[in-house]
């Protein structure tokens, strides 16, 4: 072993700062020296896990913080120090709030999340947060450097009540907007309201006032002698005098805490003293203001106004007579634009074009066309029409809001406006494409509500950080036009997919992917590939799905869009694990997906999707219990999210039922299946899932020997599936019927059902594992009926079909393989039976020993192994099976063992 390298060298190696020659020398050393290797691993870990325990050091003028140059300290508070700084890139002055170390990764992540949420919030009365940056393990928030004075200083001059109310109504609007975005201020006070020279008020320091170590807002406070002595310094986490009782006590607080602080502040500025002290002034305010204050200052949060908006409506009333013209003119002057004043005073509105624009995607013409299509199908279009109208209204609101932020209020950059409009354009295209696809009618209308529910979220277009982080869209007009066109076509692909019109969608998707690739705009390509994967999932060929999913990951990585990346990894993990049936690798990829999802601020349904995919992988691996746990995790997230697509929960409950059944937990299986049926029944469009849910329930009942219940459930299910015209669904029902009669002991009827099943399954397109399964079931019953020769033929065909589909080692095929071995032994075909048994034993050996699913096959294998003379192995197998078995099965195995184990 070569001598160890210095820590300096290892550090340079881990930061990739070495020359190639040095690096390979270190590499070679790491191979033989576990100490150095562990050190490098620790360094690699350290670079991703920052530790936060640094004592603060004040920054001096001229020091650099990231790309910013510190100018001077302008304040310090509980959550950190504020510096004025210069941003050389944008040539502007900014305020940097260097956050106090937040005690741990989690707390820090929360601070970052909140600051990011603030950065997304664009409102004239909220001080703009440009971003949040991390430097090593320090976090700082970059904010607008506001010229002006805080409301406390502002109030030192004589102010009329009307002026005070105007300032507070503005500040209240800022709070209201933040509350809507889910952010609570928790330290609102006059010091945090900046009044600009033009009269506009901006609220500062949202959501940052929490003690470092705790999730709950703070009780770690210093009580100031009087409010006026409250300076910017000190370690106050939320300021005592402004805190409602619940916050002082450290109880959970919500937006209503801000209402209380708002009213204390208003009282203080109006009367020159907080509500607890004698007033120093007697302003002319009406009874309305007194009432507002009294209600907002209620110690019991429930007794206050329901929200800021309700409070402001009241306050506006107090202000109304004094306002009149003054408001519009003052606002216009504040914005410093004559054109805007004209607009406000009744001229043309600069942002009113949205309504007309979206009407081209979903307007009178489209409404009528869709109504005609539904009429032809004999169903009512009302629900769909209402949903699309709602989407359209939301779009118009978002379009206006985006436009006004730049054109009227001047609080948003042109660049951001551009991206928001592109984002909205994509949503308009999706609306138009869905409308067109619906208008062309057909049986797919059944899936219409699903398609509408899957329309891309409009709220995403207000997400500034997300929009700005992605690669910039091309700037030349020709490429942009082409981009819009491809987007339009992509929207059509998505609409067709959601409606299940795979044959039309597939060629179009391929074309769109090619076009997107040619345009070279990664985000669009990533989306196109995602859509292609969704479409290919409906088909039967698997390899192209994996290829598309890998390409999707590549494009998503290039797009720099973290949501696309998370989705792409998840998609890939799911495809590799469940479709390609390589669960180990699937878990691997889902690991990466989890990292990506965890890094998202708003993972939305992706977490649920992750648990769903993980559950599927675990199910394939035969780990029913872990699968069930993962499915429950998914459900927890689905059920609390209004955006959950229809039918997903039904699907998950069904999988839970099936896994319980495999784990021989029949009561739990029945409960879960009933839950699936209940959900499917509630879903008005749910005809599509109800039959499958019913057949799952029937299966659960069958396992509990409730044959009558199972039969009647199946009758209903079979009728539904015949009506749906889906061969696959009819097949599932026939299968359950056959299994039911087999278990009930009526082998003749079972064989009859399975014959019907085989005939039905044979119609499905190749490669057709359903047909192989049907033959397997049929053969197993023939074996039970002692029709050995026929059973061998049927089962041989089944197994060779499975093999042809590459399912040699698939656990689900094991029972059929064992049946074939048994049939071959019965037919005295030992030469065929023995190698086949060897193979099955290998597959079983590779599977988890405690998998309840495998108890029965293992026991079956044990009996066959015994029969072929492998007695010790047989006993071992049965012992393993016994440990994982339950109920009557357990008894059966232990009986067998007591008879055979002794005599081996």
């Amino acid at each position, binding site marked *: 072993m070569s001598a160890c390298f210095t820590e*300096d060298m290892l550090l340079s190696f881990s930061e990739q700062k070495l020359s190639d020659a040095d690096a390979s020398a270190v590499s070679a050393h790491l191979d033989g020296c576990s100490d150095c290797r562990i050190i490098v691993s620790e360094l690699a870990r350290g670079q991703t896990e920052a530790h936060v325990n640094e004592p603060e050091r004040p920054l001096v003028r001229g020091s650099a913080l990231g790309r910013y140059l510190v100018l001077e300290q302008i304040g310090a508070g509980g959550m950190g120090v504020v510096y004025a700084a210069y941003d050389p890139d944008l040539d502007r002055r900014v305020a940097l709030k260097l956050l106090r170390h937040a005690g741990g990764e989690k707390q820090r992540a929360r601070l970052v999340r909140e600051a990011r949420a603030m950065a997304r919030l664009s409102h004239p009365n909220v001080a703009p947060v440009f971003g949040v940056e991390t430097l090593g393990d320090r976090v700082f928030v970059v904010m607008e450097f506001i010229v002006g004075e805080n409301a406390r200083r502002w109030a030192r001059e004589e102010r009329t009540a009307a002026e005070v109310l105007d300032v507070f109504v503005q500040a209240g609007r800022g709070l209201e907007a933040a509350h809507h975005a889910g952010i609570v201020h928790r330290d609102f006070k006059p010091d945090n309201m900046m009044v600009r020279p033009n009269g506009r008020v901006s609220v500062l320091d949202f959501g940052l006032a929490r003690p470092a170590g705790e999730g709950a807002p703070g009780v770690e406070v210093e009580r100031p002698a009087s409010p006026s002595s409250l300076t910017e310094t000190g370690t106050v986490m939320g300021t005592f005098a402004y805190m409602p009782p619940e916050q002082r006590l450290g109880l959970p607080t919500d937006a209503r805490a801000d209402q209380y602080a708002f009213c204390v502040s208003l009282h203080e500025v109006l009367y020159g003293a907080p509500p607890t002290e004698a007033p120093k002034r007697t302003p002319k305010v009406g009874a309305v203001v007194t009432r507002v204050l009294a209600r907002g200052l209620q110690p019991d949060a429930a007794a206050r106004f329901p929200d800021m908006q309700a409070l402001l409506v009241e306050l506006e009333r107090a202000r109304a007579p004094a306002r009149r013209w003054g408001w519009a003119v003052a606002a216009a002057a504040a914005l410093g634009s004559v054109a805007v004043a004209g607009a406000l005073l009744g001229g043309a509105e600069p942002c009113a074009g949205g309504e007309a624009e979206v009407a081209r995607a979903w307007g009178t013409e489209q409404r009528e066309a869709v109504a005609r299509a539904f009429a032809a199908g004999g169903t009512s279009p009302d629900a769909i029409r209402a949903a699309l109208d709602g989407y359209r209204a939301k779009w118009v609101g978002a379009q206006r809001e985006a436009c006004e932020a730049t054109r009227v209020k001047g609080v948003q950059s042109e660049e951001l406006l551009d991206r928001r409009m592109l984002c909205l354009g994509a949503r308009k295209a999706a609306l138009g494409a869905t409308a067109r696809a619906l208008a062309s009618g057909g049986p797919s209308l059944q899936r219409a509500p699903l398609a509408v529910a899957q329309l891309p979220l409009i709220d995403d277009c207000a997400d500034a950080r997300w929009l700005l982080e992605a690669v910039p869209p091309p700037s030349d007009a020709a490429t942009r036009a082409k981009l819009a066109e491809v987007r339009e076509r992509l929207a059509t692909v998505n609409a067709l997919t959601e409606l299940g019109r795979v044959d039309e969608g597939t060629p179009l998707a391929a074309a769109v992917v090619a076009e997107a690739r040619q345009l070279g705009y990664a985000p669009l390509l990533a989306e196109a590939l995602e859509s292609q994967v969704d479409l290919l999932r409906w088909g039967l060929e698997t390899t192209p799905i994996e290829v598309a999913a890998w390409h999707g990951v590549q494009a998503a990585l290039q797009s720099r869009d973290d949501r696309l990346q998370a989705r792409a990894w998840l998609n890939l993990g799911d495809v590799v694990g469940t479709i390609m049936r390589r669960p180990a690798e699937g878990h691997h990829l889902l690991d*990466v997906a989890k990292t990506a999802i965890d890094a998202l601020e708003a993972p939305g349904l992706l977490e649920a999707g992750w648990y769903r995919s993980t559950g599927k992988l675990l199910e394939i691996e035969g780990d029913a219990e872990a699968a069930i746990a993962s499915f429950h995790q998914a459900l927890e997230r689905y059920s609390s999210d209004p955006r959950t697509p229809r039918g997903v929960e039904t699907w998950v409950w069904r999988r839970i039922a099936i896994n319980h059944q495999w784990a021989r937990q029949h009561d739990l299986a029945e409960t879960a299946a009933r839950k699936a049926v209940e959900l499917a029944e509630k879903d008005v469009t749910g005809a599509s899932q109800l039959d499958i849910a019913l057949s799952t329930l029937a299966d659960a009942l069958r396992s509990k020997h409730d044959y009558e219940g199972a039969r009647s459930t199946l009758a209903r299910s079979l009728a539904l599936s015949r009506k749906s015209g889906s061969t696959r669904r009819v097949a599932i029902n026939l299968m359950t019927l056959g299994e039911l009669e087999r278990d009930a002991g009526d082998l003749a009827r079972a064989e009859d059902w399975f014959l019907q099943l085989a005939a039905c399954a044979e119609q499905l397109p190749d490669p057709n594992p359903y047909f192989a399964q049907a033959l397997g079931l049929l053969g197993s019953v023939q074996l039970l009926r002692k029709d050995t020769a026929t059973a061998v033929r049927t089962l041989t065909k089944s197994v060779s079909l499975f093999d042809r589909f590459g399912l040699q080692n698939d656990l689900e095929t094991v029972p059929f393989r064992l049946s074939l071995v048994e049939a071959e032994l019965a037919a005295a075909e030992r030469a065929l039976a023995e190698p086949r048994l060897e193979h099955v034993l290998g597959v079983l050996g590779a599977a988890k020993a405690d998998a309840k699913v495998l108890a029965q096959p293992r026991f079956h294998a044990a009996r066959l192994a015994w029969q072929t003379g492998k007695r010790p192995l047989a006993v071992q197998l049965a*012992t393993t099976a016994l440990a994982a078995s339950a109920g009557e099965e357990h008894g059966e195995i232990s009986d067998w063992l007591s008879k055979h184990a002794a005599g081996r």
Partner: protein
Amino acid sequence: MASLDEQFAKAQSAWPGVELAREDFEAWLEGRDAKHADELYLACACVKGVPRAHETFEARYFGDLRSLGRFGSDAFIDDVKQELRQRLFFGVNGKPKLEEYGGKGALKQWLAAVATRVALNLKRTHNDERFASLDGDDGLFELPLDEAGPELGHMKEHYRAEFKKAFAEALATLDVEARTYLRQYYLDGLGLVQLAKLYGSSAPTVSRRLSAARAKLLEATRAVLSQRLKVTKVELESILRLIESRLSADALGGR
């Protein structure tokens, strides 16, 4: 690049109360990377025994050593700290370890490297058993097979020696990097993202390389074993599958 005066002023204000002579600082920067001038200032002050330097160093950097928790208890970390004090400030033979810090990276990271080495040495002298699994490739072989059921546990016990040998031979057939990848992934518990960052590569690439290395390792083990062992093909397959499943699932962590 800032002038020496600026660097000195900045470093001075970075460590209030630690007064290093300007000429000492200047001489110290010689041959070191001035990018981390502040940290070199403190390192020099510690070596020169400037008043309050040691306390300042400990206050600033020793807190981070909590990350060594994966090697042992708080008491163990205290031992590591004690040993570090000795080595960093005074040295084992009069040459303080901090002299070696050349400013190639952040002092905090450098210290993490030194501390890890100290921790490993201490573990070794304590003859800690948990450590043994980190040490050699035994750890790779010893990935738990116990849950796998009685029959396979038995086989592993039975063929243990042959198996270990085959495994070691197989491991030797991999290339240096593949071996290091496997060890860092399975033994040191680095994630895909961390590995990708370490080797300036991407997570999918790392994932593919790991899979390839694992496949090759198993293939080679299979080849060696089937030559040497007289187990039936089924038994051999079972054992290998078992290792494969452990390598791919459990060692992935989180399951």
